[in-house]
């Protein structure tokens, strides 16, 4: 399991903790967290690779830029900044063709 944990606690207590799977690796996520937040908290930045094989990650953070598209439970082009993490959900880096 990834050891990086960039969560802060100021003013809040998190809810239920569970694991999600990112490219086969188990990472932690909390109820109410977006997949984007869980990835950043684990120090994972790359969401997809473009046609020209360039890495891309979270950019606008509010669902406008569509850069953070990943494959979530088999559904490609899912914006992880707009998608909540669910227990055992499977997230894959997207390779655009």
């Amino acid at each position: 399991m990834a050891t990086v944990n960039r969560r802060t606690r100021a003013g809040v207590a998190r809810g239920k903790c569970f694991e999600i799977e990112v490219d086969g690796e188990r990472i932690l996520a909390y109820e109410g967290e977006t997949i984007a937040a869980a990835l950043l908290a684990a120090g994972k930045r790359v969401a997809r690779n473009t046609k020209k094989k360039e890495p891309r990650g979270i950019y606008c953070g509010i669902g406008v830029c569509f850069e953070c598209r990943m494959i979530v439970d088999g559904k490609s082009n899912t914006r992880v900044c707009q998608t909540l993490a669910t227990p055992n959900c499977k997230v894959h880096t997207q390779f655009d063709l």
Partner: protein
Amino acid sequence: MTIREIKLAIIGAGPAGICAAIEAAKSDVSVTVIDENLKPGGQIYRRLSDAFAVTDENRLGKDYVQGTKLIRELEHYSPKIELIEDAPIWGIFADREVAFLNKGKNEELKPQKLIIAEGAYDRPMPFPGWTLPGVLTAGAALRMVKTEKVLPGEKVLLTGTGPLQLVLATQLIQAGAEVVSVLEAASPTGAWKYLPQFWGQWELIKDGLHYLWELRRGKIPYLTSHAIIQARGEQEVNEAVYARVDRDGNPIPGTEKTVEVDTVCTGYGLIPSTRLSRLCGCEHKYEPCLGAWVPCHDESMETTVPGVFVAGDSTGIAGALVAMEEGRLAAIKACQQLGYITQEEAQHRSLPIFRKLRGLNRFESALNRVFSIRRGLFTRITNDTIICRCEEVTAGEIRQIIADGAIGIQEIKRLTRAGMGHCQGRMCESTIAQMISIQTKQLVEETGWSTPRPPVKPIPLGILAAEQD
């Protein structure tokens, strides 16, 4: 599928949309609010997840507390207000017919009056390396720190212009990140010229000084007349180069410095979201200070399309306080048009709002002037810099086409596919307009804009196909 006919629809549940809804409910008008996010609040009043227990609301900041109050008021009027969340709007058709996705299904509403409060987003400002993971907008970073309680990285460089950078720097430091520097493209003297216009807005000035003080205390360098010129890294950013810039924003050769960072936050102000007001056919005008198009409207916020109103940051960047008042004005006028309140009552309720707005708008227009985007910042763009993130169109390709004679956004879109991808031009249109203007010496507004066509948000094809059955 049936199209539901209603009195009033509001697009967007940020400060403008929420206040519009409350005002309508107060006038006894039933209203439907459609929002793309999971919860109301918009960007500024974005809520924490219900799964997070708030142990100390004051530590969440003043905006959060204000947002809580506003959303409580919205809930108070819930019998009159239908709130549809997590619902991206993909089209608006003739006679205000609004099409959106609701729980994976297509839905359509036909309101007699429509208020559009679609908000704004961080201005995309390209420079070499800006597409690397770890380079993200100030808005994205703020959201992560404020409502997801996650640090986007550990060693952060801030670059951009305007007061939002100070807010972000303070939040990052408090959350435990190392802020390497805050680079402000504007010069320090710029602000003094507009001092008289700031007069009287003590609350807002106090906020600004407080943030500057916080930076001082944390010994964070706040470098005016500076900007990033390159982000470097393989899979993600690990180094940034910045330089001093002149008054027009041109980097000054020989002043470059390289710093090791794992995150770069870019905050070059906001640009209004206008895809939906454009779809409605509203007339727009170009605001050079904002570097963006905004919908034209009268003092009651009605656009050139009768029955279609706009409010909030999508009409020009002025912040939550202005947005709320504009939302109220739009709703009052819409309710009057619907016959729920008399002209006298509408006037009586609007007058104090007009008065309030005058002071606030003066402040915001001064801010926008001080922190307007300097032309020279576009000289950072090398030919291999990506401009259209979706279709991976480089500046070199675009410059070549302009050199070959293209003079408008639409032509460039057709010839390069820039603006045709998932984001529908939201990330590249403003930059391409500047690039054409710089190269052809036209005014930016003469380069035109890309006409949005539905779907303005990607929708799974199956959903529309199912409609045909």
